[in-house]
């Protein structure tokens, strides 16, 4: 697939490449295996459990490494290449380690006309991250612009990791960043 603007293939290559690679701890053993079995019971095919399984991997490791993809492939009877094809389609699956705090700022039109770009800039400034997608020098923060978060009446919505925060303004950013630091 061509072009740079196609989000389905160009999930930003988040920084933080220097993070030490710890030994991979398998996800689908013990309690994890039991959770997966409960999920599998809800789908007529094993592949149906792939998206939930990928979420479990990301929950545990913070991102989905090639080893993680291989583990998902193994337990669900798929090939690693197939799993990779799926992971790369969805922007919320991280294919690289991200900063300890991953911030997504909506800047689509409805939020944009409410000043969302200023909110994004305030996050860059408050965290020291140089630009969108690049992790801050202390390795703690990665800020990205995202498309509509489905909360346009609460401009500007921001996600910090799994927390969804409504009505963020440039003025409220420093306190938010301090809360997470």
């Amino acid at each position, binding site marked *: *697939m*061509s*072009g*740079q*603007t*196609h*989000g*389905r*293939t160009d999930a930003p290559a988040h920084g933080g490449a220097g993070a030490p690679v710890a030994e991979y701890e398998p996800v689908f053993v013990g309690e994890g295996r039991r959770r997966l079995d409960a999920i599998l019971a*809800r*789908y*007529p*095919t094993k*592949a*149906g*459990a*792939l*998206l*939930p399984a*990928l*979420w479990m991997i990301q929950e545990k490791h913070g991102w989905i490494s090639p080893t993680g993809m291989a583990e998902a492939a193994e337990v*669900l009877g*798929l090939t690693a290449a197939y799993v990779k*094809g*799926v992971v790369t*389609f*969805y*922007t*919320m*699956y991280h294919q690289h380690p991200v900063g300890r705090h991953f911030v*997504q700022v909506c*800047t*689509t*039109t*409805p939020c*944009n*006309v*409410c000043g969302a770009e200023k909110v994004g800039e305030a996050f860059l400034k408050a965290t020291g991250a140089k630009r969108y997608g690049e992790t801050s020098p202390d390795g703690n923060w990665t800020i990205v612009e995202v*498309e*509509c*978060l*489905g*909360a*346009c*009446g*609460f*401009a500007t919505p921001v*996600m910090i990791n*799994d*927390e*969804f925060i*409504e*009505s963020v303004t440039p003025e409220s950013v420093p306190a938010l960043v301090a809360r997470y630091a």
Partner: protein
Amino acid sequence: MGFPHPTHPKENPVLSRHFGEAEARSYDGWVKRGGYRALEKALGLTRDQVIEEVKASGLRGRGGAGFPAGVKWSFMPKQKTKPHYLCCNADESEPGTFKDREIMRWTPHALIEGCAIAAYAIQAEQVYVYIRGEFTEPIQVMQAALDEAYAQGVLGPNAMGKGVRIDITIHRGAGAYICGEETALMNSIEGKRGNPRIRPPFPAAVGVFGCPTTINNVETLSSVPHIIERGGTWYKGLSLSNPKSTGTKLFSICGAIAKPGNYEVTMGFPLKELLYDLAGGMRPGRKLKAVIPGGSSVPILTAAEAEETLLDYEGCVAKGTMLGSGGMIVLDDTTDMVYQVMRLARFYAHESCAQCTQCREGTAWTVKILQRLLNGEGRREDLSLLLDLAEQMTGRTICVLSDSCAAPVVSAIKKFRPEFEAYLRNGKPAARA
């Protein structure tokens, strides 16, 4: 949490009646408010009776296309030879739309009840509620409500003690607008990339996991318990303008407006009153410039057109646009139309699944051309190029994402041409706030 605002006298709260009441989220709180009576009633009717009631109500799909819900259900095979499935579309990613999120976070049991009734009607034992991955809070609220519904025997192998199996499973998306398109949604549930499928076959014949499937929006399904309880005739009577548009609808209103939020009114309600009475009008000192009324995927209305529009399917068509999801994006006189249209096109370029050439290349080129215009590097032929491109992008692709990108671009150039020409003439970026 942003909600609620006090109900405005002109609102007609059916779905939103209990928004803001934390207690309504619990099973007990829901039952206290009359919850699960409709499911009990439906399970005592034949499947055909349920479908007839929904047909009689005139309820049309709230996800965008407005297809009559009861008619859609009646397409499902009567003789069951394979499992049937119901998919609830909670992917809500259309810019300007944030109503389903509110339904799920405040009245999760309303959606569960609607899903259960629909599942019964179409003989589905498994329901997948596909919730976009970013909706962490609605997912938690829905999961807690589901756990309670199972514990109370509302769901499971013997739902409501009536001997039918109804299971409901949340399937969390992972960041892809296109998965709101119904066939992409089904692929995503199957553990595939979310590429839309070529139709036919239609989902009622070959849907998720190759089985007959019905897909409905959150708001559509949440309306069903009211219809079963109070009758299709009652619902059909809720209509202020055209009898083909019935019931109440949650309108999300956002952008440059004083009081953004969700407002529930009867179909056919004047957009002007929604803007100025319910949503508090423009911000101080600002004037209305335009409204994109159906989420971002529909033609833009000028201020004058918007003020004459009646909010129902026909009312929007009469003004050359569409009701879509009912998400109203308000733009005021400080809006740079060219920049905001570029920003919308960027959304579609980002979200294109890239299967179809017209869409993949068309959305990307639309952004490039608009960007060069904004940079003061526009060429004289660029506006006609944009219009040509839009024509190539319309009606030729596997799904309508491509058309959705073209619609706001074409209408903006037609209705706000001087702004585009100013960028061409001045050859330099105009001042942006």
